[in-house]
């Protein structure tokens, strides 16, 4: 056994016995005022079932041993907060818990967990947390969520226009990614390379109305020489618009990073899977370390220019063995200023793809890599988004994709030539579904067309056509795998 690992295990053993042996010294300000830096704690092992709301737990997080208070608990997971960090949530699973804090000694005075004052204070903190949670929701969303069932019953068509649109501005790309469904588009010389200014202008009134747009591409958006002009146009027409950009990060020079900041782009999604050294085998042509440097420079510029935007999110595809590197990537991302990581399932196109799909073959892991990544992200203040799917419904059609040539597709799976999907032992060819072209018809007309409205209605009620069913089933399987891993 490596010395470092033995040392950590020994530290855990000592910690869990601190109530009878040497006490553990608490460090930090997360639990002020109840626990102060320098307090001596007595920790005892505790069975999961015996843990109560309000208990203070010490748990393992790689080489660290955080100590926080339980505010929610299920059979398989607990949610903890720091008394001094009430807005942050930390999840912990049974196998990571080392023990419960049973005593605190400060300036020679010892308080124990069974004392009335300790219990009363614990109840106070939990109550404050619960009230704070409810108030935060009311503050963010108003009272509507609580009155929804009474004053706003579910309507047939919840949106008069899409809440967001994805605008593909470039079909040119410098990478050949193994899982890319657009390789044929990249190679098709008859396919329009870049969206034109004229096409984009037809979308500006809609963008102004909905207040959100996501620039992406079947290729790399930064290849479009007019991209920053597009962003500036949108920003000028609708100053409050949320503008997102997806990129592979290879062309994210310092100059372009500065432009993104100055134009007020809200979020940059960088597609990156695994650590440098691994990603090169997935996104052929990429130099992983260069992209990491580009991201780092972007976040440094944000600091220099005193800007909070753009937020940097990594779109992390967990196929091809990248799952095992998730924890290390979270740490790497923290170091370069990444705020969010979205785990993406790989939609397999072939049988071999399916064999390397999200989390496949990691049953022996019992979800530990994912749980560790979640805990690391939470402690770093980073958001880790997991693949989720709404039960028996698909809302993708409410986020239409606009192709470079102006075609309006309901989602990224039914665009261009369609897509191949491996499902239940068969390779299924998804068709291309377009409801119109904005260069010839107004978007409002396309959106309200009976065919598109019917398509949306059916998808949100689970009345899928066979192709949508196949796509939905693959995504649901992935989401279920995530849930299973977290429950194991």
């Amino acid at each position, binding site marked *: *056994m490596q*010395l470092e690992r*033995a*040392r950590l*295990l*020994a530290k*855990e*053993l*000592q910690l*869990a*016995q601190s109530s*009878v*042996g*040497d006490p553990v010294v608490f460090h930090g300000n997360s639990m002020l005022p109840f626990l102060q830096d320098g307090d001596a704690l007595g920790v005892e092992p505790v069975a999961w079932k015996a843990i109560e709301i309000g208990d203070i737990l010490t748990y393992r997080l790689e080489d660290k041993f955080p100590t926080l208070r339980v505010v929610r608990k299920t059979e398989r997971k607990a949610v903890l907060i720091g008394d001094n960090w009430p807005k942050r949530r930390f999840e912990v699973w049974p196998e990571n818990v080392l023990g419960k804090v049973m005593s605190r000694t400060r300036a020679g005075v010892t308080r124990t967990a069974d004392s009335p004052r300790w219990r009363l204070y614990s109840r106070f903190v939990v109550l404050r947390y619960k009230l704070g949670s409810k108030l935060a929701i009311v503050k963010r969303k108003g009272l509507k969520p609580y009155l929804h069932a009474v004053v706003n019953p579910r309507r047939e068509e919840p949106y008069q226009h899409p809440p967001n649109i994805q605008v593909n501005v470039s079909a040119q790309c410098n990478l050949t990614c193994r899982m890319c469904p657009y390789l044929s588009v990249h190679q098709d010389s008859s396919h329009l390379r870049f969206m034109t200014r004229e096409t984009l202008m037809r979308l500006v009134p809609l963008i102004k109305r909905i207040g959100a747009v996501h620039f992406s591409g079947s290729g790399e958006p930064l290849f479009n020489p007019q991209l920053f002009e597009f962003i500036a146009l949108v920003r000028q027409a609708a100053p409050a618009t949320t503008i997102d950009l997806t990129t592979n990060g290879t062309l994210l020079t310092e100059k372009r990073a500065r432009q993104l900041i100055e134009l007020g782009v809200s979020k940059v999604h960088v597609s990156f899977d695994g650590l440098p050294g691994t990603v090169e085998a997935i996104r052929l042509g990429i130099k992983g370390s260069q992209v990491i440097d580009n991201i780092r420079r972007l976040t440094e510029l944000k600091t220099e220019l005193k800007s909070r935007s753009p937020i940097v999110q990594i779109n992390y595809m967990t196929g091809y063995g990248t799952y095992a590197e998730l924890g290390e990537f979270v740490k790497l991302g923290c170091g370069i200023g990444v705020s969010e990581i979205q785990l993406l399932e790989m939609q397999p196109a072939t049988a071999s793809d399916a064999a390397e799909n999200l989390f496949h073959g990691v049953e022996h892991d019992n979800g530990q890599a994912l749980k560790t990544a979640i805990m690391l992200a939470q402690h770093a203040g980073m958001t880790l988004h997991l693949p989720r799917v709404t039960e028996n419904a698909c809302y993708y059609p409410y986020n239409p994709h606009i192709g470079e040539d102006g075609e309006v597709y309901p989602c990224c799976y039914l665009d261009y030539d369609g897509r191949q999907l491996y499902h239940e032992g068969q390779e299924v060819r998804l068709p291309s579904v377009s409801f119109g072209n904005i260069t010839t018809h107004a978007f409002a007309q396309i959106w309200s067309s009976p065919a598109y409205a019917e398509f949306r209605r059916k998808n949100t009620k689970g009345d899928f056509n066979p192709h949508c069913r196949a796509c939905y089933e693959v995504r649901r399987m992935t989401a279920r795998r995530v849930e299973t891993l977290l429950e194991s």
Partner: protein
Amino acid sequence: MTYHINQAIVRWRIVDDEAVLINIENTFYYSLNKTGTLIWQLLLERPRPFAEIVGAVATRFRRTETEVSADVRQFLEQMGAENLLTMTGASAE
């Protein structure tokens, strides 16, 4: 002589056929290899005399008792010196 784990002061964890022990009195910690972990696991089941430990180790690693005896004795003496094991009864070897 029968060997016992000194449960009053020793805590341990076994991970992947290797054990980490800690003396909670002096906080010294020890890492055992697979052979040491095997012996530790034998003693976890119940206190055992020297001969029984030697026999189990020899069987497990397909050696003769003569071949393993010296190493087992040295291991047990070291563990005893560190107060991780206690001995009872007269020596019968």
